[in-house]
């Protein structure tokens, strides 16, 4: 799968759970790789792109989570 496509899937997953359940990095890797049959490393690389670009960020609240940055 193209990296851009994986990035889109990740972003949509985080967006959909915003305000419902905070996702950890491992939740995202597990879900995206299971749903789309791709390697966790591939998901990780796409996620890293998103974080490096500031599209998604790490947050901390008694644990570390991936979220959309506040506007």
């Amino acid at each position, binding site marked *: 799968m193209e990296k851009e496509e994986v990035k889109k899937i990740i972003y949509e997953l985080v967006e959909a759970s915003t305000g419902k359940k905070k996702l*950890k990095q*491992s939740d995202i890797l597990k879900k995206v790789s299971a749903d789309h049959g791709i390697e966790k490393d591939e998901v990780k690389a796409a996620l890293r792109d998103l*974080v490096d670009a500031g599209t998604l960020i*790490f947050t*901390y*609240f*008694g644990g*570390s989570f991936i979220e959309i940055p506040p506007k």
Partner: protein
Amino acid sequence: MSKKHDTPLLDELEKGPFPSFVTEMKMAAKHSDMSNDLLGHTELCYKERVTHWKHGGIVGVRGYGGGVIGRYSDIPDKFPGVAHFHTVRVNCPSGFYYTSAALKEMCDLWDQYGSGMTNVHGSTGDLVFLGTKTEHLEPFFAEISSRGWDLGGSGSALRTPSCCLGKSRCEWANIDTMAITNDITQHYQDEMHRPAFPYKFKFKIAGCPVDCIASIARADMSIIGTWKGPIRINQDEVQNYAKKMNIQAEIIDMCPTGCMAFDGKSMKIDNANCNRCMHCIAKMTKALRPGTEQGATLLLGSKAPIVTGALMSWVIVPFIKMEPPYEEFYDLIDKIWEWWDEHGKNRERIGELIERLSFPRFLKDVGLDPHPAMVKEPRRDPFFFWDESDIEK
């Protein structure tokens, strides 16, 4: 900066024989608004007996999921200097060696971008830079990374590994603690900067069972140097010690496993029963040395009491060589992390998970064979306690 706040309660903490953090805060307050307000803020917390700090949230530098710990005052109007008071963790060098030039440079940068106050080192290991504003994080990070420094770990990530000074200065080191610490740090950059664990994970590496870094109590994985085979004995030196100490009372009778003998002429050790407590070696440094086949014991699971009670590390690999490229070691770590990732709950340390699912289950799942040397809590208390006679001297 002139004095802004009266601090009668804090002033009490300047009395007495010990160095005082209040004195340090006052020194920093002379040239920092942040530290000046920190004094007032801390005084108020003491007076009201309630903390006015809030923590957590979203602070950091781009691309990193850790290294900065967010702190805010809940009364920023009263104390604008500490409206933000974030902590920056900077990865310490192995063995905590610095040049004075490097330290001066870092302190100058911190005067420029932060409160000027540091904690060297935090228990985690890192150089801890206390107190800065969100808008100063990126510029400070740019300055330090351009000089070859990097942030340490925080949050649900691998924390900055740390070690005793090992072979650089200590003849008892059975492993090259500094090289191992550096290798682990480089090998797991991703795990340090991009938090992906259920909770924190710490490596601490000690060169021998004296465990100067208290690895056995403070590291999820304790790597402690040890040896196989006989303790090396120099019988001539034993004779020299016999002239100045009572070997029977001070060494033989104090060996915890009763595996030593001394007939006035030569010393014998039943090495199969030695539990490597280091007592005899530490007391008779010239006469006794660790054996020549050296390596490490790996132990898993210790932690301080945060979510649940304190735990000590449990032996999982009685002996491993620990030589580059450390393949066997990294394979095991990856398996352990996978198991933790699979079964751990949020904020559950690896030691707690083992307690919950059982040690046999852990061994089976990560593919380790049970062995009688997998001692639970091999040493109950790693800290040195002085007895009254020591204090009198």
